[in-house]
């Protein structure tokens, strides 16, 4: 595909976004109370550039969505005979996500492998994914819980994005170098009628990428995680290890709901009230930290304690998923699970300890 | 808590002695009375039976005035005013009535604040000052004075509005008079009607009812009737010549305001108590009381003399016997 770069002056950003988003609903970070969340953006609204507290995954994979409505219809001549009609029309509007970070965008890639390219294509996800353009903002700083460089992601990773914006310069001279990653991205970028980014600016963008990468490396050198998938499997039965790791875990779902890659859901049916003949099937986020996640109909729960549940979360991201998906780790190192955790459970520590611990006792 | 004082209109006219003696007695007891600024009629005119809101507005006006003067209680000597003020306060608890009254007043009652409590001066003295404190301040006990306390018909009724003492057998004035050293006679007509409200139209009724009261007091041995109501006082005192006494006419039953006797016992000069304004000569009662005391003293003296005589006789006898013994031996 044709690769080109455009330049958006800082003062032009809102206008450029309006143009790119023509015909689409734009979701951009907005402050709500003491949090930053993705919300529909009004035309002309100056976007917030802060990293959102919650990743934008809900735009494509909503917290709760109606899969279909069911309507029971009675045979007028025999009220004992009821047929059920389904209404699975979904109202999906073209959308644009602005202001996610590379780690957020890469989340969609993790989803894609499961819901688009796996054995079962999820029509709801597919429809939203295809209708949504992802415009990502490259990172210029290393946050204290950032570890994207450990996981194959990075401060300027383009996986999952359609367009990558890199902030260059500062103050009134500042702006963004916008690079289209996909054809779709290119088309959207063209709509904005922007000047080409000159070589100096393209170089500046490259420099920003390199500097952030360096800062991350300085903060925490990326460990070698190539053996981690096997090591975690070896650690599967080490209950003491998982007890120590999970001691402080409260077993809430904050980490998974803040995670850009967590894609698990629950299905429930609800009645609609009204005449009592209508209902809907809901799909809603679910999380493996909840005891209900694996509770079976009999009441038996194969993952009884929080230790086993935490083991699953780490294991899934760093072992089970990579083994099914060509070694791709289903963690982007965004660090939200660490900052968002009420008790600062640190997934980095667990991965490193699991990997190291085995090295200490290789044949244990 | 500040005490507002509502004299009532009769206190400026027919019952000036009640008003004067009340103030004098309260002063002697150290009870500070705050006059309600610009007080007006309580509404206890015949109109109160016809138009509750107008009558209530007059009372409410006075209560609001007391509240604005920083008082949480209003004391009044007159049972009629008491009744009217209390009834108005009672009715003001109803939002509709309060609103209606509010429209009639320049300065309506504050919707949220409670109106001041209303009590009779009698209640104030008995509950606030207390009998023990009063007893301690008595300088001139009413020794020998036999009194029939007469409360009148409205001081305790209706019970759920007045909320003071037993509605059928009140005893607070009895207790007060006892504390002053007087002797209270059993008087069954304490709360019976004296007929005063028929004073103009049906004098026959007044004559019968008042006569029964006075007669019962006399039969019970009372030297005087003690009242707490200007109308009762006027009726029983002024009309004593006109009433139908059960056992023949007489004009010899003084009718005191309780505050007059209170003042007297506390040592307030008679001039400040308005005793001279009574129709039936109060001296009659005091004279009889003095007689009782004198008789009692005489009896005591006689008894003492008798006892002394007996003792002397005994001693003489003993002496004699001793002498006889001695003589025998001799």
């Amino acid at each position, binding site marked *: 595909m044709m690769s080109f770069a455009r330049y958006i002056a800082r003062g032009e950003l809102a206008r450029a976004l309006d143009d790119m988003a023509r015909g689409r609903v734009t979701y951009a970070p907005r402050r709500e109370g003491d949090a930053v969340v993705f919300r529909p953006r009004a035309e002309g609204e100056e976007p917030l550039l802060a990293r959102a507290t919650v990743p934008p995954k809900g735009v494509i994979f909503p917290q709760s969505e109606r899969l279909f409505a069911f309507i029971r219809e009675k045979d007028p001549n025999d009220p004992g005979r009821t047929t059920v009609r389904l209404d699975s029309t979904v109202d999906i509007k073209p959308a644009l996500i602005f202001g996610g970070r590379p780690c957020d965008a890469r989340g969609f890639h993790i989803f894609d492998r499961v819901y688009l390219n796996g054995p079962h294509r999820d029509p709801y996800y597919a429809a939203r994914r295809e209708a949504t353009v992802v415009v990502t903002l490259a990172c210029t700083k290393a946050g*204290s819980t950032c570890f994207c460089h450990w996981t194959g992601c990075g401060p300027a990773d383009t996986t999952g994005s359609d367009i990558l914006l890199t902030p260059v310069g500062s103050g009134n001279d500042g702006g963004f170098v916008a690079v289209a990653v996909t054809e779709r991205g290119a088309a959207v970028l063209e709509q904005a009628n922007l000047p080409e980014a000159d070589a100096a600016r393209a170089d500046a963008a490259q420099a920003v990428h390199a500097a952030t990468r360096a800062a991350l490396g300085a903060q925490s050198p990326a460990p070698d995680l190539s053996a981690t998938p096997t090591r975690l499997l070896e650690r599967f039965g080490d209950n003491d290890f998982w007890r120590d790791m999970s001691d402080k875990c409260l077993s809430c779902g904050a980490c998974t709901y803040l995670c850009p890659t967590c894609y698990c859901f629950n299905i429930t049916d609800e009645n609609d009230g009204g005449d009592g003949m209508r209902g809907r099937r809901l799909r809603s986020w679910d999380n493996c930290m909840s005891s209900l996640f694996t509770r079976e109909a009999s009441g038996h729960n194969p993952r009884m304690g929080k230790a086993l549940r935490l083991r699953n979360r780490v294991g899934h991201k760093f072992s089970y998923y990579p083994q099914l998906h060509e070694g791709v780790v289903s963690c982007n190192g965004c660090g939200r699970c660490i900052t968002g955790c*009420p008790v600062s459970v640190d997934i980095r520590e667990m991965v490193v300890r699991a990997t190291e611990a085995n090295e200490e006792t290789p044949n244990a | 808590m500040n005490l507002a004082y509502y004299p009532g209109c009769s206190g400026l006219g027919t019952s000036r002695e009640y008003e004067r003696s009340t103030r004098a007695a309260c002063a002697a007891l150290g009870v500070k009375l705050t006059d309600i600024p610009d007080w007006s009629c309580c509404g206890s005119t015949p109109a109160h039976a016809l138009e509750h809101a107008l009558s209530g507005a007059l009372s409410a006006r006075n209560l609001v005035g007391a509240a604005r003067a920083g008082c949480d209680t209003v004391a009044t000597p007159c049972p009629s005013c008491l009744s009217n003020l209390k009834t108005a306060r009672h009715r003001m608890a109803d939002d509709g009535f309060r609103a209606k009254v509010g429209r009639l007043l320049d300065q309506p009652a504050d919707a949220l604040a409670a109106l001041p409590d209303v009590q009779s001066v009698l209640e104030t003295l008995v509950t606030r000052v207390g009998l023990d404190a009063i007893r301690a301040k008595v300088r001139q006990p009413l020794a020998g004075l036999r009194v029939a306390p007469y409360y009148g018909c409205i001081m305790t009724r209706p019970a759920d509005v007045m909320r003071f003492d037993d509605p059928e057998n009140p005893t607070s004035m009895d207790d007060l008079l006892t504390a002053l050293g007087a002797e209270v006679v059993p008087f069954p007509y304490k709360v019976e009607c004296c007929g005063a409200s028929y004073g103009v139209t049906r004098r026959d009724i007044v004559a019968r009812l008042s006569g029964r009261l006075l007669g019962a007091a006399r039969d019970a041995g009372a030297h005087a009737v003690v009242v707490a109501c200007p109308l009762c006082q006027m009726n029983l005192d002024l009309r004593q010549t006109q009433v139908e006494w059960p056992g023949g006419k007489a004009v010899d039953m003084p009718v005191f305001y309780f505050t007059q006797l209170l003042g007297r016992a506390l040592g307030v000069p008679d001039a400040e108590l308005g005793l001279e304004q009574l129709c039936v000569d109060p001296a009659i009662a005091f004279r009889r009381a003095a007689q009782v005391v004198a008789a009692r003293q005489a009896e005591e003296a006689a008894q003492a003399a008798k006892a002394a005589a007996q003792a002397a006789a005994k001693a003489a006898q003993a002496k004699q016997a001793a002498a006889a013994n001695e003589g025998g031996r001799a």
Partner: protein
Amino acid sequence: MPVLKGKELRVVGFLCNWCSYGGADTAGVGRFSQPTDLRIIRVPCSGRVDPMFVVKALLGGADGVLVSGCHPRDCHYSQGNFYARRRLETLKTFLPALGIDPDRFQYTWVSASEGQRWKNVVSSFVEKVHQLGHAPRIEEAAPYLPLAEKGDTPRAPLRPPLRPLSYPAAGTLAASLEQLREKIRAALPELDCVIGWQQGFDALHATPLFMRKPEDVDKLTWGPLNVHNLATYLPQFKNRKVGVVVKGCDSRSVIELLQEKLVEPDNVRVFGMACEGVVDMTRVQKTLDAGNADGAMCADTAPSSVGVEGDNLSIEGEAPARLRLADVVAEKCRTCDTPVPLLGDVVEGNASAPAGPAPDAPPSPPSLDALDSMTPEQRRGFWRAQMDRCLRCYACRNACPMCVCRDHCIAESRDPHWTTQEGNIREKLQFQVIHALHLAGRCTECGECQRACPVNIPVLALKQWMNRSVRTLFDYRAGVDVNAVPPLLAFAVEEKNIKEHGL
């Protein structure tokens, strides 16, 4: 089912079978005409009426809810209406916190013989509801985020703490801490573990520490970053001996757990130290971000060390900062009157004395003041705006030391099926109401619910509101007396502070 247009509003009644349902029957037998709006749900006893039914109805579109039971003392089950009176009065005082007009909910007593009274009750209540009109829906309220542009939750101006917060010099603090460690080391052999704090993923964050070996004790820290209430972990140690390190406020949670027999006194050892306040991390972060001209492109910067002395918090590293404790201290510390743990093995340290005489009533916390200052409509809009971003992760619940149902919380169960998985305001808020109601008379206002919220929803204000109700109604404060009975598990035949509601 649509309400009869133009004529009726949706009024739901819960009536006890023995008195009020009978009273309604008596009214029918007497042919006492009544408004047709009311729909009666028969329950055995007013004590069966879960306040959540009322909330469910009101959030679900009811314009009015009426509960009626036997007169006090006449309960068929002798005590049901006494419990109901406490629960329903508590609810009535709580509804305004959600922006719901408390007049839309009424409870009363009608006996089986009081047909005339029932007619009057129904008529006056329905008339009242008609005066109020259709109930506004929270999900339709205009979002209200005061100070949102400044990125602040609506906090009233900061109130100076009751006590001047002042940490001792580093050396003194270290000595006290060493004393504490010594006590723990001594007790450790007979305990499963002792729960304390250690430094977390960076110098600005502490994290819970589970000490099992003596060398673990060396990691124990003390200071304003020890924000977590570790009492939360105790119930899971049932039947095992465990130690816990507490601040003054945390000790109230331990007392509450002991009182409810959720931990056994023989199985828990409490260690503690006088506390000089802990930070509100959100406020710290915001203060630090405020200096970040770049609009906080990336919020979290890693400090290299954090020091505290007196009222000063010094942050060293890439972005050094000096903060005054009084500016960033947690809301609960501003009104704290229990800096020293109320039980356990306590190192007194030198807790600073209160600034003045203890106030008659605890001062109301700023969040509550903010909620108080809103109109009902604003409160609906406020909760609509705040709850919108709720992830339903239940960190608020799991961090709450008094939420002991955990895996069995009715927020997620199908039987009973109180909430659905729908991602709307109503369902999200409903859980917060459940939490507040279940905490009535139990909450020590430790603030963990709000602190734990990853999206910083100010849910503590609901509990503060509830606590004020409980204090006013029952003169009760949770977590100070191990032997007290929580007010909603008890009743008084004559309730001192509950007035009959005229109907």
